[in-house]
Each structure stands twice: as structure tokens, then as C-alpha cells.
């Protein structure tokens, strides 16, 4: 499938099955659009009518361009067929073994954020801290289930994981002790709201955490509107200096400042730029996950404004890069030459198969977004996976599993989207969350445009 769009002065053509990206001039753009639908003479006539008088395009110019297009087609870089559909389930399960866990070391939190997808950290259940015993059992479970796989990932999450910091430290110590005898290598990450960040935590994280995710929504008034403590006080002033110090001590790398935007701040680019102006260079901003009736939920009317924001952000990032003060935005990270292979593009995020979440009691869920929904409980780290039916649903979930994805150009970029979003929107993980699709496609067009812009001027 070929997808074409114009953005920021660039004419861009994507060939979805090969992953090819072409920057073209307006003439080639229009020729490509007609290439499969108009016979050659009619195509030439139409292009000459459009461009002949004004721009002096000749018949030879059009023929030369057609020759180039045929060459790209023969090379499998344009209008290439899709050979993957029948292999999709097998490719998804090529590497189906467990390799990562999200440890909910705390089902409790010291903030009272209004929009928390996890119901202020307790996932609609009891508040609890994971015991060291359950945590060790979770790590053992991961090592056992991962078979010959060496590299394992563990995310410390919650609620607020620093409320159980002693257990976090002991679990890391335990994991490191197991690495050599069990032939494993752990990579740890930690997500935190920052309230309990102190010298000890920073020193430990800088030694042991490959990455840290620091929650900040942007401008003070935006952040403090929804991220208050239990006394009703905003948290911005307490956490920003800590984050700045933490990032400085990490050498300005291996972290993300991660915000959530809502209906209250559809101009979220202002929040991203605010975070960049605070000195943070590794940024991420996600749309809120909540019920559609919540007052801060994003609406249909917001969508065109959000599209504008993504475009503004991409253009501003390019401008700042040229000026020497650029920053990274997670969704615009794209390594076109060395990015994920077709197996990964088809498989998706790995939830329910390669990646699971563990509650403080040791219960297993496909990911943090399913925790608390009994239907999706997979089992526990003590008894193993016993909900085969649900796990099989996740095994079958891939970029080709949803009928809507088959006609979508973004299929192999998004891999079918977030299963949890699909489930919350439609009642099934095999559904799609249309709003998420719209945002994703706009972000991807912007991300690709930035790569094209970095390669040169418009043709």
C-alpha cells in the first residue's frame, strides 16, 4: 500500500510493506497518485494539463519520472505487495517467551492525581506494598519462564514505587546475585512522581536503573491542576528541582520526563516546550487514559487542535535543532535505517506474552492497564499462567489481527495499537480505539517528515 501526504513543505510517499520512504517533488507526487488508476496516456495528459503551462513540464519529464517509478517498483520500494498476512501469527510467536515484567511494588501512592488510570494507585482494590518474598518469586518466575533468553527487563511501577524503596533495592540486589549463575542480565527501569526522590534514591538509581521515567505534565498551572497531594497542594514546586538535580546527576541521559495531556491543555506543545525550557531534553507526552465522560477526557472537537499541536511541535523541534538547542520527543524518535524488523512490527508491544504485570500479591496480568480486571488475570507468579484462553487471545493479537488495520497505512508502524485501549473502547482487545489511531497517524506523519527534513530540503 502507498500512502502520500504533504507536510511542512515536503511531499512524502510511503510504501508500507517494504517500509520505504520517498521525498518527492509535487509533480512526482501527482504522478504516483495516478500511477495505478490511470492508463499511461491519460496520466501524461493530466499531468501536462496541470504542470505544462505553468511550470514548463514536458512529456519527456513525465516519461522520465514514470521510468523512475517503475524502477522503484521493480526494486520493491514502491507499490510492493504485502507478503506478511499469512505469516503474522507465526511471526508473532517466533519469540513468544516471557522476557519482561512490570512489578507493581506499590498499590498505593502519595499523590492524589485526578486522572490516574490506576485509581490513585490502588487499581480499585486494596492498598498494598509488594513483599520482598513475592518480588523475589516474581524474579524467579521471570528467569524460569524466559528459558534461554539472556536479557531480561524489569520495570518498577505502581502506584508510587518509591513508597516501597527498600524492597526495590533488595530486589535489585537479589537479581544481580542471580545473573551469573542463571546466565541472565537484568535491565531495570523505574517510574516515579518524584515526591520521594532524595540523594539515596538518586544514587541508587544512577547505579542500577538503565532508565527512569519522571512524571511531569508541563506548566505549573497545568501540572498542579490535576497532580495534587492529599492535602490538595500541587506538586510542581517540590518535584521540578528534584528532577532537575536527578537529570543533572545522570549526565543528562537515560531518563524521560513524561507528561499526560488532557482536555484541559490541548495546547500541550506549550507544556513540552516549557519542559524543554526547564532544561529537560528527553521528553514524552501521552494523551490521558480515562473514561469518555470524565471532564478532562479528550473529545472529538479537540482532535483537529491536537493535530495542529503535533505539527507545530515537529516544526519547532526542527527549528530548535538547527539552532543548537534541540530535544528528543519520544514519539518522534524514528530510526528508519536500523529500526525494528518485520517480526517486531507485526508482534507489537508484547503484552500478555513477552511482558506481564505483577501485582503486590503476585497476580499476573497482561500489562499494567489490565490490572484489577479479573477477566484478564493470567495467573500468579506462584501458580504460573493458568488463564490459557486469555493468553491465547494475546498470542493471536498482532498487526494483522484486526480487520480495520489491513487497509491502514500505519499498520506496520503501530502494530495494531494498544490492546488495553482497544479493550476499553470496544470490549475486546481485537477491536480498535479509533481516537488513538487518529492521533497515532498524525504523530507518525510528523515523525517521518522530520526524518525527511533532516535528509535535505524539499524537492
Amino acid at each position, binding site marked *: 500500500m502507498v500512502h502520500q501526504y504533504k507536510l511542512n513543505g515536503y511531499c512524502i510517499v510511503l510504501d508500507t510493506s517494504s517500509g520505504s520512504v520517498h521525498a518527492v517533488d509535487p509533480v512526482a507526487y501527482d504522478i504516483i497518485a495516478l500511477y495505478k488508476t490511470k492508463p499511461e496516456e491519460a496520466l501524461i495528459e493530466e499531468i501536462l494539463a496541470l504542470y505544462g503551462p505553468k511550470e514548463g513540464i514536458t512529456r519527456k519529464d513525465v516519461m522520465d519520472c514514470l521510468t523512475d517509478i517503475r524502477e522503484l517498483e521493480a526494486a520493491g520500494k514502491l507499490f510492493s505487495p504485502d507478503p506478511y498476512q499469512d505469516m503474522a501469527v507465526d511471526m508473532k510467536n517466533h519469540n513468544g517467551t516471557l522476557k519482561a515484567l512490570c512489578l507493581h511494588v506499590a498499590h498505593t501512592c502519595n499523590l492524589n492525581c485526578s486522572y490516574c488510570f490506576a485509581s490513585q494507585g490502588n487499581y480499585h482494590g486494596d492498598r498494598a506494598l509488594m513483599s520482598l518474598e513475592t518480588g523475589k518469586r516474581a524474579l524467579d518466575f521471570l528467569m524460569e519462564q524466559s528459558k534461554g533468553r539472556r536479557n531480561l527487563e524489569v520495570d518498577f511501577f505502581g502506584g508510587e514505587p518509591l513508597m516501597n524503596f527498600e524492597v526495590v533495592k533488595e530486589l535489585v540486589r537479589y537479581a544481580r546475585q542471580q545473573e551469573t549463575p542463571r546466565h541472565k542480565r537484568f535491565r531495570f527501569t523505574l517510574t516515579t512522581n518524584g515526591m520521594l526522590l532524595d540523594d539515596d534514591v538518586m544514587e541508587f538509581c544512577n547505579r542500577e536503573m538503565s532508565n527512569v521515567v519522571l512524571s511531569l505534565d508541563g506548566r505549573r498551572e497545568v501540572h498542579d491542576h490535576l497532580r495534587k497531594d492529599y492535602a490538595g497542594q500541587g506538586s510542581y514546586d517540590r518535584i521540578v528541582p528534584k528532577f532537575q538535580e536527578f537529570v543533572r546527576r545522570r549526565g543528562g541521559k537515560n531518563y524521560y520526563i513524561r507528561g499526560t495531556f488532557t482536555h484541559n491543555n490541548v495546547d500541550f506543545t506549550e507544556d513540552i516546550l516549557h519542559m524543554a525550557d526547564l532544561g529537560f531534553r528527553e521528553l514524552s507526552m501521552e494523551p490521558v487514559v480515562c473514561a469518555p465522560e470524565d471532564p478532562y477526557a479528550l473529545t472529538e472537537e479537540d482532535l483537529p487542535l491536537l493535530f495542529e499541536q503535533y505539527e507545530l511541535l515537529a516544526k519547532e523541534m526542527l527549528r530548535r535543532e538547527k539552532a543548537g538547542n534541540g530535544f528528543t520527543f519520544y514519539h518522534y524518535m524514528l530510526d528508519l535505517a536500523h529500526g525494528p524488523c518485520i517480526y*517486531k512490527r507485526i508482534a507489537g508491544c508484547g503484552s500478555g506474552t513477552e511482558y506481564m504485570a505483577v501485582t503486590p500479591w503476585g497476580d499476573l496480568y497482561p500489562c499494567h492497564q489490565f490490572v484489577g480486571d479479573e477477566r484478564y488475570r493470567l495467573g500468579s507468579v506462584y501458580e504460573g499462567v493458568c488463564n490459557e484462553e486469555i493468553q491465547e487471545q494475546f498470542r493471536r493479537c498482532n498487526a494483522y489481527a484486526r480487520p480495520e488495520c489491513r487497509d491502514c497505512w500505519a499498520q506496520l508502524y503501530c502494530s495494531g495499537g494498544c490492546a488495553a485501549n482497544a479493550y476499553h473502547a470496544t470490549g475486546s482487545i481485537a477491536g480498535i480505539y479509533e481516537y488513538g489511531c487518529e492521533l497515532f497517524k498524525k504523530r507518525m506523519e510528523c515523525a517521518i517528515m522530520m526524518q525527511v527534513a533532516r535528509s535535505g530540503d524539499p524537492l
Partner: protein
Amino acid sequence: MKRIRTIETRDLGKSVQNGGCGECQTSCQSACKTSCGVVNQQCENSEQE
């Protein structure tokens, strides 16, 4: 080509042969990104062609 500039991209078709090692990161970046695109992640296999 005068009117077309092809950007260097990983050939997905070829990666049927040279891909699938499973070394890439699984989680949506520390369980935080429900809008994660797989394509934003990196290939961790330094030997891929």
C-alpha cells in the same frame, strides 16, 4: 532520480531473514506509554544487515 529522493530505510522484506532475534525492548517504555508505536523503539541487534 530527479524528482524522487529515497530515504534509507530498513528493508522489512529482507528482515524476514535477518530479523526476529527478540532482543528489542518489550514494554511500552516502563509501562507508561499506551500510545507507544513499536516503530519508535530501536533494534537492539547490532549485527542486523
